[in-house]
């Protein structure tokens, strides 16, 4: 990885991130189960403790801070299940991460039709 040049705004979910985020991702993976989602909603703090989230992760969960969750090792495939609990879709996430309004983010997606057709 280290040999590759950086890609703006992109953190490959590699071994370093996977180690950092294991507890957080495991918690989010548990949200496949409706009873677990309910338990989280009933007592977020207790649920986070049960999965051993560190302070950085717990803070990002409390703050619904998507970039913070990524920096704390969250993987978007698992974080999406947390977003589901909050009733957020991927455009809400996109808006939050790019600092745009959801409408502006959606408009930017549509505008990408104007890209050229050939490389």
């Amino acid at each position, binding site marked *: 990885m280290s040999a590759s040049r950086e890609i703006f705004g992109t953190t490959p979910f590699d071994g370093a991130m996977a180690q950092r985020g294991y507890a957080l991702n495991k918690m989010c993976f548990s949200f496949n189960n409706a009873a677990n989602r309910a338990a989280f909603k009933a007592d977020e703090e207790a649920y986070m403790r049960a999965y051993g989230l560190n302070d950085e992760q717990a803070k990002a969960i409390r703050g619904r801070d998507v970039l913070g969750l990524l920096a704390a090792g969250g993987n978007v495939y698992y974080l999406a*299940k947390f977003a589901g609990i909050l009733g957020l879709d991927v455009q809400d996430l996109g808006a939050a991460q790019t600092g745009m309004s959801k409408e502006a983010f959606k408009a930017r997606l549509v505008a990408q039709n104007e890209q050229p057709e050939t490389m």
Partner: protein
Amino acid sequence: MARIIGALATSHIPAIGGAIAKGLEEDPYWKPFFDGFGPARDWIRREKPDVAIVFYNDHGLNFFLDKMPTFAVGAAPEYRNDDEGWGIPTLPPFKGAPDLSWAIINHLVDREFDIVTCQEMLVDHAFTLPIKLFWPEGGGPLTVPVCINTVQFPLPSAKRCVALGRAVGEAVAAWAGDKKVVMIGSGGLSHQLDGQRAGFINKPFDLKFMQSMIDEPEWAAQYSIHELVEKTGTQGIELLNWLAARAAAPGPVHKVHSNYHIPISNTAAGMLALEAA
């Protein structure tokens, strides 16, 4: 002897499941997407493939980071869909083709692919949506899921995924079952959900990639994973499933139909139906 009749490929955005459940196919947002499937569905109705090999990536339903396979092959009599956490409707089980699964597994290990075998396996939207989209009236094919890691780096290289697809194709072609088999690639095209680059789409790359699937099927395999992430986004890398499916339907093909639409959700949605020439 089994016969490989072609390859199908489509994006697999979760919201598609909701749109189907709510009957939104004619809704202006969805119509340009769903309309793209018409000619492919006609072809499938005509050709009636018995079995589909579905190359897809799990999004954290069957696999977690405690046991994360590079390649996993289903060998179950049926595959259950289940709650993925967002309330998209759970679909009834999909029938497997365990004899074909084991023929593929035996060949792959013989060819030095170090696969995981799954005699029980939950399949997520990346597996279920292509079946729903290509067989909208139900009566879908028997299935063999082939799961490729696109979640946790290091990912298998595009070259390795092409080699996997090719070996799957060899196994199917050699299989004694007298069936018509279609390959399906699920995922992509360019999109990125995470990070400040969220919303990234690369239309010129996608269109070139779709054309290459027809006449230059290993074109994208020239790129490293890092280059493909740069060109297609962190989730655009799911095009590995398209590459593997195309490699599994070797030889020349002609295009039944293609469709490309920006955006569905955050994704450049692609659809491709190729018939073995």
